[in-house]
């Protein structure tokens, strides 16, 4: 063996399930096997998210150019891998990834994530070796207007959710007479169920920094800010390391890339307010104020941070910029569909078999994402019900619509939004009224309180939803929800308020029968809403295991060995412990 590289996934999930221990074990085992001296370069690398988080810790072992991937690696498996695979040249078959791993990747097009999961995010040389900062170098050989033209040619639309043309935004800022301008990276990824931006920053922080340098040059800014959530300590740490390294290489600072041009970046930590993902609120927060949105216009490209023209771009948008510069706008536009060019990163989670971080060309169908990449529903015997996109501002799209293409315009038409890229799959054990309640609880808490419709409207909507899930729904509650929803949408100032009713309105559109079942029949069809549950054991499905019997806190279940369980409804407190526990879904 001449050459050896080991890549260990150190993304958010990888780290949570022990990748640091795995890395340490590899280093130790290699040294114990006397290999460290033979292989000159540093061969154990930590990388950002490799994508298929459900199988973490993932490890690539590359011996003389031949790569094998191991799944579910723990530190006690390492010594055998080193001995069998690296020393004796025989990969440990039983721990290698299986067919589903390859199926997961088959329909994906990785241009942005290609580098995440391959390079060491804490080493700038790993990034420059694969062409990093070459895009910025090229941009600096062009005029700012030419850079903007190239970005416009790519058709890139903002990946934060609204889908506004990035090139146009830059041009709008550039055209201001005011010479002090700012560029901001919005890394305040607040949507629950979304971790794309986090993974990009943790996996390849330099791509975002390079994107900001190019953007800064194009609009004529001398200072940039990265506004990032404090809930992502690792991403912040890696950004700090990356900034330091970029300064040392003179990619940031005075007279960068040999031009008479100064540019530097600052990190600002968020403090836990979802509304600060909204552009004007975010800028107030950077100024150290309460993050409350203001009316637009003036738009922030004209009057933004400290009242100066400001461009605010999302992490993924900025990470695309170096690639566009390097390969050309035409190349980027060759992915996806006209009007919706390029790829999009999604965080695929929920009741789906293959959870993880995926990148697909825009225009792909939901079915391809959920069935082909996601592997379909997680638990046997359950059915796919819907997918939630766009977080609290988005909506639920039912399984019957899974043929629709995923792009900015189609998603909007279906009553949801593309959003920043969270996709939470739900099976038939998810109650849509409960789901709407979940999101309303979130938006009610996160409303900044400025607009009456949002502050009080979301509270009233939540009250109505709560009483429906408690079995106390009234006949005209659905009409009341619709009325409240449309009013909040019309009369609120910012994106948070305007989209707050979406989770309710979209579930009402596709799952109205479920609301009606709650109100008229007093039944929760998915069996989630506790107050409406009447538990019984299915005599067909019960396998006599007795698990429900031992879980029941109120001794309402009778069971003996080899006999089916029975529930005494008079003793049942409807806690749902049996329902959750039953391995056979035999509790109805």
């Amino acid at each position, binding site marked *: 063996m001449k050459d050896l590289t080991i890549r260990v996934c150190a993304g958010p999930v990888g780290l949570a399930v022990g990748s640091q221990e795995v890395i340490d074990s590899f280093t130790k085992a290699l040294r114990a096997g006397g290999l460290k001296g033979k292989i000159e370069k540093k061969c154990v690398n930590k990388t950002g998210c490799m994508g298929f988080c459900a199988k*973490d810790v993932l490890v690539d072992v590359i011996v003389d150019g031949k790569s094998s991937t191991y799944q579910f690696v723990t530190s006690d498996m390492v010594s055998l891998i080193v001995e069998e695979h690296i020393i004796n040249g025989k990969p440990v078959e039983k721990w290698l990834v299986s067919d589903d791993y390859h199926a997961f990747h088959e329909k994906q097009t990785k241009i942005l994530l290609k580098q995440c999961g391959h390079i060491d995010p804490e080493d700038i040389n790993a990034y420059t070796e694969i062409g990093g900062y070459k895009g910025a170098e090229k941009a600096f050989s062009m005029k700012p207007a030419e850079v903007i033209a190239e970005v416009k040619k790519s058709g890139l639309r903002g990946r934060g959710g609204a889908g506004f043309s990035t090139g146009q935004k830059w041009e709008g800022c550039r055209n201001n007479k005011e010479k002090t301008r700012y560029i901001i990276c919005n890394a305040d990824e607040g949507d*629950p169920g979304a*971790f794309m931006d986090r993974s990009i920053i943790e996996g390849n922080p330099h791509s975002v920094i390079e994107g900001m340098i190019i953007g800064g040059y194009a609009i004529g800014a001398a200072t940039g800010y990265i506004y990032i959530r404090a809930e992502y300590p690792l991403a912040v740490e890696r950004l700090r390391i990356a900034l330091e390294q970029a300064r040392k290489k003179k990619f940031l600072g005075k007279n960068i890339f040999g031009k008479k041009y100064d540019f530097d970046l600052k990190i600002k930590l968020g403090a836990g307010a979802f509304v600060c993902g909204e552009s004007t609120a975010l800028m107030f927060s950077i100024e150290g104020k309460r*993050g409350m949105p203001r009316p637009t216009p003036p738009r922030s490209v004209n009057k933004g941070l400290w009242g100066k023209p400001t461009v605010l771009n999302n992490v993924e948008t900025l990470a695309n910029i170096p690639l566009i510069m390097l390969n050309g706008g035409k190349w980027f536009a060759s992915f996806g569909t006209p009007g919706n060019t390029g790829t999009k990163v999604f965080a695929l989670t929920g009741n789906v078999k293959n959870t993880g971080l995926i990148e697909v060309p825009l225009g792909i169908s939901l079915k391809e994402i959920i069935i082909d990449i996601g592997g379909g529903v997680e638990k046997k015997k359950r059915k796919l019900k819907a997918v939630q996109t766009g977080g609290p501002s988005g909506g639920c799209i039912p399984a019957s619509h899974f043929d629709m293409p995923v792009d900015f315009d189609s998603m909007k038409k279906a009553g949801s939004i593309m959003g920043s890229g969270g996709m939470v799959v739900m099976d038939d054990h998810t109650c849509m009224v409960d789901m709407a309640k979940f999101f309303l609880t979130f938006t009610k808490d996160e409303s900044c309180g400025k607009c009456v419709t949002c502050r009080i409207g979301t509270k009233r909507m939540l009250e109505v939803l709560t009483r429906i899930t408690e079995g106390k729904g009234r006949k005209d509650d659905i009409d009341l929800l619709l009325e409240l929803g449309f009013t909040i949408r019309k009369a609120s100032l910012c994106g948070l308020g305007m989209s707050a009713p979406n989770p309710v309105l979209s579930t009402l559109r596709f799952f109205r029968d479920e609301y009606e079942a709650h109100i008229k029949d007093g039944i929760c069809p998915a069996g989630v809403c506790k107050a409406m549950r009447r538990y019984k054991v299915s005599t067909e499905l019960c396998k006599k295991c007795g698990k429900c019997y031992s879980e029941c806190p109120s001794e309402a279940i009778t069971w003996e060995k080899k006999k089916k369980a029975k529930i005494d409804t008079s003793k049942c407190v409807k806690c749902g412990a049996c329902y959750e526990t039953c391995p056979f879904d035999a509790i109805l």
Partner: protein
Amino acid sequence: MSVDKRKQILKKYHDEGGSIISILQDTQDMFGYISEDMVFWLSGELNIPASNFFGVATFYAQFYLKPRGKNILTACCGTACHVKGSGAVNSRIRADLSLTEGENTTKDARFTLESVACVGACSIAPVLVANSKVYGKVTPDKASSMLKEFKKGAE
């Protein structure tokens, strides 16, 4: 609270405008929470009205005006965690710590249970963070045994 420690915080933001949030964040890192005394001290030193500090501190969820427990448990309540049963995990922890409604810190101030909208580790939902270490695929039983271990280990 020593004066030197407090001054350390201010030194860092000497010449920058708009640093109220950063100053409060550093204060909290250093002292665990933001006390009234501290706000009035900052207000005097910087010649910024105390109401500005309180306005910011009450707006953002991450600031605490009361001391917290020694050990911080953060339950993720994101969409993926919700769909996968974070509710049951939460109720179990509350029961195990004997927290009554509206109460987040145990009487002996050893544990504080908080919730967060999403920690971004949705693939291993439901997620529980205990003193910055992330635990995935938590079930009520797993949470209970974790707490037991934790109680033994923590003072």
